[in-house]
């Protein structure tokens, strides 16, 4: 039976239908075949940590209540979640390490395909590390900064320097709780140690270190990835583009980049404009070269080059099913192993590039920063060569694509608000203080077949906009918003409340601001810190009328992100709960008690509209605590009197 995707964009629906008709298995089919999924894993009470197990605790209370070692549901669920945080933090941070390494190469004496494109950003980050900038060359500063950033990973003494950019009050809370991150690798390693057989049994103590590990990601690894990427590839600027499978062109060589890191894809984006290559494509009968992206690699090059978005995580197979993709090049993270099977159904050539991510039977063109341009050329040439293998009879490109505006950053959005010469957060803070804006929400994260595709993202975002809550977005939520027209400035007038309409109308911004990839959630942290610094809305992030959400979360990275927002004082909503429900104590701790410690907490609500309303209720609670005026305009979802 063809899979109905009632909330998805038209292009996805068309391609899912084609997949069913042609019996090509996709993520939704595999999800159905996997049903029912094991409740022990879902509840987080299955332990595979040592070989006395595997063990599982009976959630109904009749069977075993502890594993062979004696670990109860609380310990088992906390250890599992701790390891998820460690894996998520590792993924983001290893990406950060690669970016720092690239900066080091750009600073070297040898010829290199990378250079510092944003010296202003370089100097700003150098200042965080106390690196002298005046009278020094960009290369000298870059070298010092790259080394200082790399030191953050293996620092043996002291604390993460990058975390010193958090508000003072926040850092004080971390110090008092004993969760100030020390070194990025260290926190991940320590989490693996603590959750090893027979180490940390106290679930609160495990979560405490979990928050420290997550902070080492958000205010460390991810922030390094974002800031140094800006320095190397240039800070994003506001730019227009398009999103959805309709950006592929039947008469062009179509190259889809998929994964997370910008190092290769940025070069591919530039090299694809090379006249020689375009000529070669013409010689093969193509009309040019189209580069489009999937997942966060897409977001990275959209933000910096305006490269169109082909689709989100759930569309990686659908892109190939258009029959028009001549080559899909992947780096790391969120790559479905099923891609190789789907690619075999068409002429599409799948190419892996990272030594960390290979696939059996898939061509591997190993990427190295030393020869970035040469490798990018080789990949594009492979795509051009494969164009002749395309069977035009099997090409079915959906016509749908949507306009979008992206490229907002901590710096650029407020240059926008305040003007280039008086960049300031003042207008934003004032809008919140006056009640024109009720608050702001970060809606981010993956997509997951365990909910209707895109229903959570769209319903939540629209409910927030309707209630004058400005939304910032990253990752696959951003791609979903883009495909559904929420990243167009005029979307404010269709979906926004009156206050939001006024702000967006006056400044000319969309009601949903795309701030980048999933490591770029650190931009949201940095923005929150800047709002606090601007003044008038409290002394700490936990005072702000803001909330975060990942309605369709899937990856361990989302768990790490959620925990660093909770540890930074943000109310964090997800729809399907974390796998902790087998432990009542841990569930209660994460959704209630932790708020007394960090000011943030987790919330789980499966209905996306109700989830948005819970976020709004939290925003109202914070407005009240700040003694702010009630929202300026009548709100569809009424504040409590």
């Amino acid at each position, binding site marked *: 039976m063809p899979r109905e995707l009632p909330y998805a964009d038209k292009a996805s629906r068309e391609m899912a239908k084609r997949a069913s008709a042609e019996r090509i298995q996709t993520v939704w089919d595999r999800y159905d075949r996997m*049903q*029912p999924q*094991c*409740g022990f894993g879902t509840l987080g009470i299955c332990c595979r940590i040592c070989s006395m197990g595997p063990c*599982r605790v*009976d959630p109904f209370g009749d*069977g075993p209540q502890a594993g062979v070692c004696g670990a109860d549901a609380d310990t088992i669920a906390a250890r599992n979640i701790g390891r998820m945080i460690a894996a998520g933090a590792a993924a983001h941070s290893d990406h950060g390490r690669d970016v720092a390494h690239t900066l080091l190469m750009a600073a070297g004496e040898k010829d290199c395909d990378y250079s510092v494109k944003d010296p202003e950003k370089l100097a700003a980050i150098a200042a965080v590390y106390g690196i002298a900038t005046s009278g020094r060359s960009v290369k000298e500063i870059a070298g010092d900064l790259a080394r200082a950033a790399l030191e953050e990973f293996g620092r043996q003494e002291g604390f993460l320097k990058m975390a010193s950019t958090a508000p003072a009050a926040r850092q004080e809370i971390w110090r008092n709780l004993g969760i100030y991150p020390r070194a990025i690798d260290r926190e991940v390693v320590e989490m693996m140690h603590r959750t090893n057989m027979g180490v940390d049994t106290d679930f609160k103590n495990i979560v405490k270190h979990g928050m420290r590990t997550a902070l080492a990601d958000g205010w460390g690894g991810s922030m390094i990835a974002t800031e140094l990427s800006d320095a190397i590839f240039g800070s994003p600027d506001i730019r227009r583009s398009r999103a959805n499978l309709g950006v592929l062109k039947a008469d062009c060589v179509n190259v889809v980049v998929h994964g997370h890191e910008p190092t290769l894809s940025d070069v591919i984006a530039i090299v694809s404009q090379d006249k020689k290559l375009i000529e070669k494509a013409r010689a093969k009968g193509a009309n040019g070269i189209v580069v489009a992206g999937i997942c966060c690699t897409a977001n990275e090059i959209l933000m910096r080059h305006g490269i169109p978005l082909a689709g989100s995580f759930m569309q990686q197979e659908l892109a190939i099913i258009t029959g028009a993709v001549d080559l899909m090049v992947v780096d790391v993270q969120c790559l479905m192993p099923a891609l190789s099977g789907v690619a075999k159904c068409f002429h599409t050539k799948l190419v892996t590039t990272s030594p960390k991510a290979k696939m059996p039977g898939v061509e591997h063109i190993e990427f190295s920063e030393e020869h970035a341009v040469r490798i990018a050329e080789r990949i594009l040439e492979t795509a051009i060569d494969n164009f002749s293998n395309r069977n035009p009879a099997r090409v079915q490109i959906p016509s749908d694509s949507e306009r979008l505006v992206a490229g907002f950053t901590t710096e650029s959005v407020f240059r926008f608000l305040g003007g280039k010469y008086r960049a300031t957060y003042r207008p934003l803070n004032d809008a919140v203080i006056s009640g024109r804006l009720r608050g702001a929400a970060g809606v981010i994260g993956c997509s997951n077949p365990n909910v209707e595709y895109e229903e959570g993202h769209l319903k939540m975002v629209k409910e927030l906009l309707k209630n004058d809550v400005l939304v910032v977005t990253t990752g696959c939520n951003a791609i979903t918003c883009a495909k559904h027209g929420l990243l167009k400035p005029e979307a404010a007038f269709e979906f926004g409340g009156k206050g939001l309409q006024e702000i967006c109308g006056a400044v000319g911004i969309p009601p949903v601001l795309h701030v980048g990839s999933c490591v770029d959630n650190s931009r949201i942290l940095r923005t929150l810190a800047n709002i606090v610094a601007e003044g008038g809305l409290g002394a700490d992030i936990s005072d702000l009328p803001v909330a975060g959400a990942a309605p369709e979360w899937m990856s361990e990275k989302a768990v790490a992100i959620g925990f660093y927002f909770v540890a930074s004082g943000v109310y964090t909503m997800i729809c399907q709960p974390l796998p902790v429900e087998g432990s009542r104590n841990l569930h209660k701790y994460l959704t209630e008690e932790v708020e007394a410690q960090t000011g943030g907490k987790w919330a789980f609500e499966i209905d996306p509209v109700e989830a948005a309303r819970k976020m709004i209720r939290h925003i109202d609670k914070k407005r009240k605590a700040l003694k702010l005026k009630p929202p300026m305009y009548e709100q569809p979802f009424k504040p409590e009197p």
Partner: protein
Amino acid sequence: MKKGVITIRVQRCLGCKSCEIACAAAHSVAKDVRGMARDGERPGHRVNVEPCGRRAVPVHCNHCEEAACMAACPTGAIHREGEGEPVLVDVGRCIGCKMCVQACPFGVIVINPSGKGVLKCDQCVERLARGEDPACVAACPTGALLFAEPSEAARAKRRRAARQLVWEQSEGEPGER
């Protein structure tokens, strides 16, 4: 030999499929999961955990008194050794016609994934002879599967219903008064 039926408490099933794995292991040569994986054996499972919305339901052979599969079998391969005993397949007499698969109203007779013929639940007769529960029941970590004599199983259900009634009509916890 133990006699009884496998009863299901649906609300307790977490869908871990331990019953499926234990069933396959009990019917394998190696008689254990690791051995089965090592030898690449595919003994198949006779119980199937089926999804129902987000719930999971293990579906077994009911060993019907007037078993449709037995009536449909042209060679007498499907038989019962004695009254109240499980319905079994004699592999030697099975010709693989799959009439039983068509006849079974519960869809619990499955095609053998390796080799000819069909698979159906035998209630682990070897285990019953040793006084043990069927492998699927023994493997269920939440007690969603029970092996009980039918009248005993019914009595247990009646008592549950009685407790429910008392609880609904009084303030206290079930079984309190």
